[in-house]
């Protein structure tokens, strides 16, 4: 399997997701869940086929991590829909996934099978997959924040905010796993669990920004508008950590994570 066949799998997945999203709008829960899950399955089969043909997990290049991000956004949307029944969430997660699919189609960043020695570690796959799942959940939380700030405004309910809280709780847990797995891996590979490498610094920044959200919610439970703004700022930090760092002059000279 190669990137050439990506467009077919992606098209099939997006059609199934769009179908599921439409059914969700019209309240057909069961068929929405079935179609959306089928779409996720189709998309994952491409990841799996890539994994087999590359003889390594497709996690190394930006293009490959975007693949997982599209996948986990759909998974996160699906979890939120089945748990909290928002009829709009599947449309949002489909559009978000589609954006990353299109980026991958236009800029696939095809890389060979070669994996440098430091990346040949059992920590590699869990480190990146856990992070991508977290990014998916936190992306969904950001959508919730935008939805609250732009559309709900005064009509915001306690339930809206508690959805954001729940998404952040899960996303934050996985963010913690990702960061700590990275530390354990670095200890095995380089003998240093934390070196303030720019990617590590931004990972800490992102983690603290979500920590700020969690504690702000406890300190000022009624000030939900500012809480939602913190979520948006935290997501900007997350983006800098994920790919923005490649464009930061401060990171370019010194980071081992620029790729």
């Amino acid at each position, binding site marked *: 399997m190669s990137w050439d066949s990506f467009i077919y799998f992606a098209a099939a997945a997006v059609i199934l997701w769009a179908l599921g999203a439409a059914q969700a709008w019209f309240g057909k829960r069961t068929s929405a869940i079935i179609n959306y899950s089928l779409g996720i399955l189709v998309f994952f089969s491409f990841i799996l086929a890539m994994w087999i043909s590359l003889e390594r997990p497709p996690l190394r290049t930006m293009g490959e991590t975007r693949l997982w991000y599209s996948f986990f956004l759909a998974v996160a949307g699906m979890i939120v829909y089945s748990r909290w029944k928002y009829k709009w969430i599947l449309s949002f997660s489909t559009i978000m996934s589609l954006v990353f699919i299109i980026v991958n189609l236009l800029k696939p960043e095809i890389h*060979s099978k070669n994996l*440098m020695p430091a990346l040949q570690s059992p920590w590699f796959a869990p480190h990146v997959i856990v992070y991508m799942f977290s990014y998916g959940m936190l992306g969904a939380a950001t959508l919730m924040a935008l939805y609250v700030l732009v559309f709900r405004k005064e009509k915001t309910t306690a339930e809206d905010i508690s959805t954001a*809280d729940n998404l952040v*709780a899960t996303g934050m847990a996985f963010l913690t796993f990702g960061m700590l797995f990275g530390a354990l891996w670095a200890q095995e590979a380089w*003998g240093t669990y934390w070196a*303030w490498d720019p990617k590590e610094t931004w990972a800490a920044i992102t983690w603290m920004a979500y920590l700020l959200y969690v504690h702000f919610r406890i300190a000022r439970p009624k000030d939900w508008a500012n809480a939602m703004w913190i979520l948006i700022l935290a997501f900007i930090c997350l983006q800098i950590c994920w790919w923005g760092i490649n464009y*930061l002059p401060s990171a370019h000279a010194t980071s081992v994570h620029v790729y």
Partner: protein
Amino acid sequence: MTLFKKPWKLTDGFLFGGVIVLVGLILQLALGPVNWGLISSPVNLILLVLFLAFVVAAFLLKKRSGFFAWLGSPAAAVPSIAWTLGLTIVMGLTAQVPSKGWLGNMISFWPFVLCYIWLTVVVGLVALNHMTRLGRSWREIPAVLNHLGLFVTLVCATLGSVDKKELMMTLHEGETVSTAETEDGTSYDTGISVRLDDFTMETWPNGMPKRFASDVVVKGKSGKETSAVIEVNKPLKVDGWKMYQYGYDEEAGVEGKMSILQMVKDPWLPLVYLGIFTMIAGAFLMMIVGFRREDVK
């Protein structure tokens, strides 16, 4: 004037953070950057005891002092996170090159260090607060583990970093070596003799390195010879040291007969691991339980 009127609220906390940064700037001007070398063993052990005593004392005084009650509350958590976050963002935006002045060396910048200490005190107090509530509800467990784990990690990683030894051992095929060099080039007798029997390097078809490994015979304190293969991601443990495959003769490439091993001894590592695994357990439980409803209502 409502500022600093008890009980302290969020705004007071943000101002308190400003005071901390100001004090940090004064210290930076007066003393220069934090000299981490000064607290190497046994000073760091004394600091550990004093710090823990301070946190416990602050916890015990919270009924009598509004300040200490505030220090372990969400109204202190938010500003301490925000200030630490802000200074860490500064670090993320500036290249960390000590020659570029204060901001190029954030880990020795007093305001940065003081903010992290403030944050650590808050985390410790919050951990103690949650622990005393454990008897009332099992739902406190994730919060206890998250805060306690972070507290142990921050304290031990910081105090332990000064005792960490990193040496480079340069080996040539067939030779036996027991000395290694520190970062500044001083020679150091490790008490471990290492003979490099073979250095192997494999490349991908495009010439990129695929694997490099050192086939070595190691003799430690026990006097027993053991043969081992050290490669990237597969370090070897000898007498409290860990030996990592670090470098090789880059010009000779596959033909190279030289290998550089990095030797690391970090006596505080088990404690840092304890903290890290406690945090992982806490995050796992938080994922299952979610945030406690009574907190966020």
